[in-house]
């Protein structure tokens, strides 16, 4: 039995999100909602947010007043998950688990052993990356059940179709661990979906019907996902399977530990230097605050391209709030230098990420990227990593072997900044044109709105699609069409014979397909002028070809009639028995073919059904 809801879950490195839609009519009208996730945001304060920060804090006896961590479903939770965990973790880092997802994919770590928080003091309880991931899912599940009801009506999350996303770069073990984490959280009906594909489906959803004009079978989409802590590249090829759009991930890069947090930290370090040059001392806590202010200043400057600088004020500590206030500013020139040039420099397609000369002893921990240039990582992906892909033969490549996509899809919070998107496309185009292909124009850049929730939304959309007819390559008619049939009834003076409506083209019937009205014959008036009445409905979406309706209330509306004389030699004003067949053409017309019983004659009625505004 199909579940009541279809749920997409993005278990992100920095933030997790959940989106859902209800089972109902057609894919094109799927309304996907992002669920609010209640979480503890301050002691004694629970609030809903659309994102659940992927942070877990392990409180000790000394951390919080008793009873201040209660959630609606748990008066004394053992761990703090979400916004307060993140906040408190900034004050007390030894008890914070962050980036559990990156640990889950790190093959050199023992992912099922209790190793997190990494290098925490002895007395702090530890959990495995598997268990942490499971607890995030458990939080989402309990929050869902509290909201939608686990009351036996089939609404609990465990009973829904859940699409859970994973990075394309996750190896088989990381995927298996993700499934186990879901099972341990009580979710059995889980399907894994790769994040770049989910991002693509989110873009499809945002386009409505117009996506078919932007991409076609054979295109190659570079998905460029730069989030808070990670960067992931993949290539998706678009193909067709039985008329359904099929996405095939043909190449994937490494899970690169480089992201928006690095960028904000780089800005904070810059401002720290400026302040220290003015003889101000900045300690670790003030650096945290500076980091936070830099993020806001950066976003402000990205959103207001004409502003040249943004003030950054650090209030004094303790009682000398005003007395200790120090001020500096972030200049646009600095923003561009540090972020655009530092993280997205213009490089050749043969420039590989630098590996710094290694110091003999290394701290054990996550393998953070040594080179901060996203564009160099991209160059490496398109030149080298693509070569190792099993699909390498089918990827469009240039003279030097560089993979050359036809489109770019951006994902992740960092790519909200237009100046960074533009720079990346500029660099990519310099490579693509060198290889002999056309540059990507604005139409080739696929922008989904709502980058923070896109993966969750896309997952829900995909779940809906695969339940129905998939995402059809060709469009379907957006109404149900009928032809008016005059009833065979005794004449009543002053009253028209009642009209029946025969469904000839059901809702969603695809362009380029045909349908035969089964079993019945109808009388076709030939040899004299007759009115052919067409009707349509946007409400009745379940009618099948051949359904003959007598009563339809206001649900069907009549279109302008066709007045025409169909001719047959030797016939004047006769009624001939015919069979009916409809055809929806690729140029947006509905053809109604009438075939005589002996098959010798056929007549065609044609109706233009393309909606205004379509090509």
């Amino acid at each position, binding site marked *: 039995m199909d579940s009541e809801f279809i749920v997409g879950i993005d278990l992100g490195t920095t933030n997790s999100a959940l989106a859902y839609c209800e089972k109902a009519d057609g894919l094109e009208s799927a309304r996907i909602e992002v669920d609010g996730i209640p979480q503890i945001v301050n002691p004694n304060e629970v609030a809903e947010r659309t994102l659940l920060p992927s942070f877990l804090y392990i409180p000790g006896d000394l951390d919080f007043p008793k*009873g201040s961590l209660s959630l609606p479903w748990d008066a004394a939770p053992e761990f703090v998950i979400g916004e307060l965990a993140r906040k408190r973790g900034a004050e007390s880092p030894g008890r914070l688990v962050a980036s559990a997802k990156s640990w889950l994919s790190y093959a050199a770590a023992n992912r099922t052993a209790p190793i997190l928080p990494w290098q925490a003091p002895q007395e702090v309880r530890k959990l495995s990356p598997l268990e942490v991931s499971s607890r995030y899912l458990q939080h989402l599940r309990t929050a869902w059940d509290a909201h939608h009801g686990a009351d036996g009506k089939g609404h609990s999350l465990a009973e829904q179709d859940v699409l859970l996303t994973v990075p394309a770069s996750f190896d088989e073990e990381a995927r298996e661990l993700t499934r186990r984490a879901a099972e341990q959280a009580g979710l059995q009906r889980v399907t894994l979906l790769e994040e770049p594909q989910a991002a693509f489906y989110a873009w499809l959803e945002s386009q409505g019907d117009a996506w078919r004009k932007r991409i076609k079978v054979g295109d190659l989409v570079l998905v460029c996902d730069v989030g808070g802590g990670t960067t992931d590249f993949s290539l998706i090829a678009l193909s067709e399977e039985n008329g359904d759009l099929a996405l095939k991930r043909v190449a994937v890069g490494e899970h690169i530990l480089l992201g928006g947090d690095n960028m904000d930290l780089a800005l904070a370090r810059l401002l720290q230097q400026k302040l220290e040059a003015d003889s101000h001392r900045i300690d670790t806590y003030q650096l945290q605050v500076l980091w936070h202010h830099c993020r806001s200043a950066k976003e402000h400057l990205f959103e207001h391209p004409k502003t040249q600088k943004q003030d950054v004020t650090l209030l004094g500590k303790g009682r000398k709030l005003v007395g200790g206030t120090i001020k500096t500013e972030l200049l646009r020139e600095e923003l561009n230098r540090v972020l655009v040039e530092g993280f997205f420099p213009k490089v050749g397609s043969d420039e590989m990420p630098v590996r710094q000369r290694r110091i003999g002893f290394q701290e054990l921990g996550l393998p953070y990227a040594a080179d901060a240039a996203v564009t160099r990582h991209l160059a490496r992906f398109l030149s080298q990593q693509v070569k190792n892909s099993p699909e390498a033969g089918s990827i469009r490549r240039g003279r030097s072997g560089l993979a050359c996509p036809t489109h770019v899809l951006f994902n992740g919070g960092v790519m909200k900044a237009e100046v960074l998107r533009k720079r990346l496309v500029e660099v990519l185009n310099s490579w693509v044109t060198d290889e002999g292909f056309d540059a990507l124009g604005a139409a080739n850049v696929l922008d989904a709105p709502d980058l923070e929730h896109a993966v969750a939304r896309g997952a829900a959309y995909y779940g809906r699609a695969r339940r129905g007819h998939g995402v059809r390559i060709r469009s379907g008619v957006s109404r149900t069409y009928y032809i008016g049939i005059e009833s065979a009834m005794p004449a009543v003076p002053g009253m028209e014979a009642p009209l029946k409506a025969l469904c000839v083209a059901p809702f969603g019937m695809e362009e380029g397909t045909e349908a035969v009205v089964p079993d019945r014959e109808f009388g076709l008036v030939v040899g004299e002028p007759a009115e052919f009445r067409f009707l349509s409905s946007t409400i009745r979406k379940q009618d099948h070809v051949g359904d003959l309706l007598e009563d339809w209330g206001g649900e069907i509306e009549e279109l302008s009639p066709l007045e025409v004389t169909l001719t047959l030699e030797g016939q004047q004003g006769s009624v001939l028995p015919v069979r009916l067949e409809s055809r929806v053409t690729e140029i947006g017309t509905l053809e109604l073919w009438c075939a005589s019983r002996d098959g010798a004659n056929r007549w065609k009625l044609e109706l233009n059904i393309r909606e205004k505004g379509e090509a």
Partner: protein
Amino acid sequence: MAATRVPAATEKSGADASDSAALDRAVQMLALLQRDGRLVDFLEEDVSSYPDGQLGAAVRSIHSSCRQVLERYIKLEPVLSSEEDHPVTVPLGFDPAAIKLIGSVTGQPPIRGLLRHRGWRVSQVTLPSLPQGSGRAIVAPAEVEVV
């Protein structure tokens, strides 16, 4: 109204309990403005010796964060929403607690006048739960860094 000391964590009954709860909410409001906006630190500091520029920079920051506190926990709206210095009509049966008349305060409503201050009214209160016990007297906890 006589000044009352905020009681420590004790059980109160009936009318006493609701006075106590009201005081606790007042403390909570200050605590929120301090936690997210550092308003109490600001008001308790002696700013007489600081140059305007420094004071101004600090004020901008505090202003921005305290505004967010109001937005999140106690939404306000004007009592009368016309433009200031524009004519308004004070209707029959108006609430003197909500509208104060100044100038030539004579005649019977409806009264025509010029709006000099729009007033403030609470439109939505969404406060978190109160802390338990002794937490109710705390506007901001002391901070001790363990090295």
